[in-house]
């Protein structure tokens, strides 16, 4: 990074933060701090919902996912349109009719205090752990740029985010997210353009796609029904719909975004904006990762993209020789692969089908050898295979191949995304703790100023908790998948409370409480005892919901009928 990069980076970040503080000046009411002023238009809600989900993790980690696993991950997002339609049609009118600040307030009105606390507690636990994961993204960028240890950069990024969030609250998040997302899109478009320009001159885009397709990176839709496969059309349309219903419909970090809308119409249109654009957006990021993969078939990458970890491991006396040998082995395998790929392209350009088929087989074999060496390198860095380097792929490309100025813009992109998503998460944690726990259980009759102060302190508390969790963590998965897996462990319980509340009027608080506990225990048992290759994480969502429904129905039948809930708490 040179002076120009620093100018662009600091200019973009500071102007967003200053605008956020200026825009929200004078708003000192707890309700507007937590929920926003209630005057947000659909376009801003749409961008805000998008920016909350599209965290720095998305922009940092998803290209690495495309690089490593190809387009298949796009199927994870197939549940979004269906889920958002259900939320817009059913959840939004109920939330607005009851005029709730947090989603868990609904549980208190529909069921009882203990069910509300259960929903809020599971959300707080899941979101606090999730916040620990998302703080990794800006920390990885800082670690890569400065060569600092990850622990120090996690601490620094965490403190920046806490200061930003506590100074503005929900309204500041909404007000600045539209500019942050503009910076993000500008950065990603610039990255795409640079990548296309950096591809070898004789490699056309169809050539690049042919190589990617031949090496299995364009397999976007998998029709096989196998619970052990993470991403298939079935896990996308069925299991991910439950996952997205929970995330957008019952996770306060998202509910808070669209409840700030001026009306049901604005909230619904904001959600439909995401339902229509989310899949194309994720596809664009994944195809970028696939093209990055093609680029690195011709430009030699490091054997392990996390070079700080690689050099740390190589510094150990016993490892140095082994890692040097791995480096050389990788160079030789890479050169062979590059030659084979060139031969494949030559045969393709000569329209010689037989030669192309043979060259393709040889190139695939050479590619497998390169991947085997990369796997050896991963194990050399961590013998248990608990670390991976895919989150470092995109940032490595930016720092090595981008012109100055654009490096600053892309780093600003990651920070903008990290700030918006982390701010939304911490803000949601602070508001749920204040409204659902503190105001509900600890202090019922304090002043507005007291609750506002409490909310800020809870935000700081959760920020500190997420930093602590991040410091204790070693990631075996890449970031974007780790965040989703964590969600799938807790979302079934949160979602099933709402599904029972909306659609099963007969079931009361005690029954659903028992059902939710049974579902949570089962999901934890599945997660810790059944390998992902047998039941993949997305399926925890429907399994947990069905178990909650069955157990709560059974308990209700044994208990006999409860008092009927209020009419306006159920779906029509």
């Amino acid at each position, binding site marked *: 990074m040179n002076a120009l990069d620093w100018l662009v980076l600091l200019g973009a970040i500071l102007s967003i933060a200053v605008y956020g503080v200026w825009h929200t000046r004078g708003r000192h009411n707890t309700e507007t701090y937590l929920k926003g002023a209630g005057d947000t238009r659909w376009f801003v809600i749409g961008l805000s919902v998008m920016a909350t989900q599209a965290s720095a993790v998305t922009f940092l980690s998803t290209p690495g996912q495309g690089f490593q696993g190809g387009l298949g991950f796009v199927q994870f997002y197939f549940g979004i349109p269906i889920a958002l339609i259900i939320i817009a049609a059913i959840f939004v009118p109920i939330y*607005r009719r009851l005029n709730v600040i947090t989603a868990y307030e609904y549980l208190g009105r529909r069921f009882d205090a203990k069910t509300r606390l259960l929903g809020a507690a599971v959300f707080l636990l899941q979101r606090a752990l999730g916040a620990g994961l998302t703080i990794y993204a800006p920390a990885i960028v800082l670690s890569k740029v400065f060569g600092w240890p990850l622990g120090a950069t996690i601490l620094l990024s965490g403190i920046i985010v806490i200061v930003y969030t506590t100074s503005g609250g929900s309204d500041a998040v909404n007000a600045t997210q539209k500019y942050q997302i503009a910076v993000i899109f500008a950065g990603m478009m610039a990255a795409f353009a640079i990548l296309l320009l950096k591809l070898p001159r004789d490699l056309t885009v169809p050539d690049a796609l042919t190589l990617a397709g031949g090496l299995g990176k*364009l397999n976007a839709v998998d029709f096989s029904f196998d619970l052990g496969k993470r991403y298939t059309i079935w896990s996308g349309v069925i299991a991910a719909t439950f996952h997205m219903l929970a995330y957008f419909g019952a996770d306060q970090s998202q509910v808070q975004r669209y409840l700030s809308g001026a009306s049901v119409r604005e909230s619904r249109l904001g959600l439909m904006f995401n339902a*229509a654009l989310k899949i194309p957006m994720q596809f664009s990021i994944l195809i970028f990762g696939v093209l990055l993969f093609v680029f690195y078939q011709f430009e030699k990458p490091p054997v392990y993209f996390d070079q700080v970890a690689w050099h740390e491991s190589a510094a150990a006396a016993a490892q140095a020789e082994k890692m040097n040998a791995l480096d050389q082995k990788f160079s030789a395998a890479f050169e062979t692969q590059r030659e084979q790929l060139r031969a494949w392209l030559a045969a393709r350009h000569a329209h010689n089908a037989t030669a192309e088929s043979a060259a393709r087989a040889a190139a695939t074999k050479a590619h497998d050898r390169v991947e085997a060496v990369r796997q050896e390198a991963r194990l050399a860095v961590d013998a248990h295979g608990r670390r991976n380097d895919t989150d470092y792929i995109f940032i490595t490309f930016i720092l090595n191949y981008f012109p100055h100025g654009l490096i600053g813009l892309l780093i600003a992109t990651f920070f903008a995304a990290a700030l918006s998503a982390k701010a939304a998460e911490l803000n949601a944690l602070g508001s749920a703790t204040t409204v659902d726990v503190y105001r509900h259980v600890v202090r*019922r009759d304090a002043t507005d100023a007291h609750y506002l102060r409490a909310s800020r302190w809870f935000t700081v508390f959760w920020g500190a908790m997420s930093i602590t969790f991040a410091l204790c963590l070693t990631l075996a998965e890449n970031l974007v998948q780790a965040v989703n897996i964590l969600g799938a462990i807790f979302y079934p319980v949160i979602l099933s409370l709402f599904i029972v509340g909306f659609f099963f009027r007969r079931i009361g608080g005690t029954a659903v409480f028992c059902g939710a506990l049974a579902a949570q225990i089962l999901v934890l048992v599945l997660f810790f005892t059944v390998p992902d290759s047998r039941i993949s994480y997305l399926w925890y969502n429907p399994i947990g919901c069905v178990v909650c429904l069955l157990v709560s129905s059974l308990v209700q039948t044994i208990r006999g009928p409860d008092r009927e809930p209020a009419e306006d708490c159920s779906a029509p």
Partner: protein
Amino acid sequence: MKSPSDNPAPAVATLETDNAVTGLPVLRTWRMVYLLVLVLFVVCVALLLILERTFS
């Protein structure tokens, strides 16, 4: 600070009007908006399949 039960619920009539009208020029009902979103989803899946089959 108001307790949750003190939060005044918006008038039911306003909410119902709000529910029924999209305010969009062509897509006048929410059903039409939802249908459009589903059609776009199917088109996305079809395009992904075409890309996969063309370059595999």
